[in-house]
């Protein structure tokens, strides 16, 4: 039987490969889908993606057209999909079977503010990597940026994923890049906790 998740992921990748080629919207897979590559594989029911797109009416129409061309489904209706899309910089759609959710984080042409969430988006685009995921060529977030973004978001599962990546690829990681950007993002303390393999209860005692 064909994998439900793989079928959805293939459709998402085809869509974003086409939108990058046609409209120049750079994309990369981020989040839980990368755990089997960078950390410890874990279950997820959605796919997270980051795309760089000018937040204009034209882009909205282009995205809507391409979602519909690939028979993607809205969770409720198409109006809701794009409600506050440019202020929230976030869109959710479902695969053509209406089973797997795609969370699309948007990065505009320039950072909209000085927050670490905006900074990590733009930093990550510079280092995205081409990867063959089950035979499908796609863009994924780089290993170091995977760790940094997990530390920026800072939840229990995020820290665990970052720690698993740190342990798994300890000899391969660019530690100079990690330290420099951890300082710039204001997460040096939690990064240093990670490099000492500290457990979550020591880093987030209230979680």
């Amino acid at each position, binding site marked *: 039987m064909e994998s439900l998740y793989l079928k959805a992921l293939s459709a998402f990748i085809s869509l974003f490969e086409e939108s990058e080629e046609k409209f120049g919207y750079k994309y990369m897979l981020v989040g839980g889908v990368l755990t089997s590559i960078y950390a410890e594989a*874990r279950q997820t029911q959605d796919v997270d993606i980051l795309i760089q797109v000018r937040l204009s009416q034209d882009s909205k129409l282009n995205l809507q057209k391409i979602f519909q061309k690939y028979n993607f489904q809205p*969770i409720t209706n198409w109006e809701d999909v794009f409600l506050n899309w440019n202020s929230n910089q976030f869109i959710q759609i479902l695969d053509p079977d209406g089973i797997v959710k795609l969370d699309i984080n948007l990065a505009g042409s320039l950072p909209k503010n000085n927050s670490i969430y905006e900074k990590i988006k733009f930093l990550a685009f510079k280092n995205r990597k081409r990867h063959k995921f089950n035979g499908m060529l796609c863009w994924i977030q780089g290993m170091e940026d995977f760790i940094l973004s997990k530390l920026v978001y800072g939840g229990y599962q995020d820290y665990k994923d970052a720690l*698993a990546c740190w342990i798994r690829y300890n000899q391969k990681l660019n530690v100079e890049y990690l330290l420099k950007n951890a300082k710039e993002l204001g997460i040096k303390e939690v990064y240093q906790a990670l490099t000492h393999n500290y457990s979550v209860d020591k880093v987030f005692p209230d979680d």
Partner: protein
Amino acid sequence: MVLTDRIISDLQTKMIFINKIPQQKLTQLFLDMCDSGITRYIESEQEKTPELNSSTIMKKYYLFLNSRKSET
């Protein structure tokens, strides 16, 4: 749940093994885990509400998750 020193130690051991497994097998394991989670959820909901199809069940689930997020 707390990620204790003991769990960290287990994680380090697990990574030694994970690094010996070909990436293709790790990807397949990830896909199996995701499918199993989705399928089990749909089947458990269909026992309660057999009239709902898989897509409707998942849409209801995502709407519920979104409503919880907006409350926090």
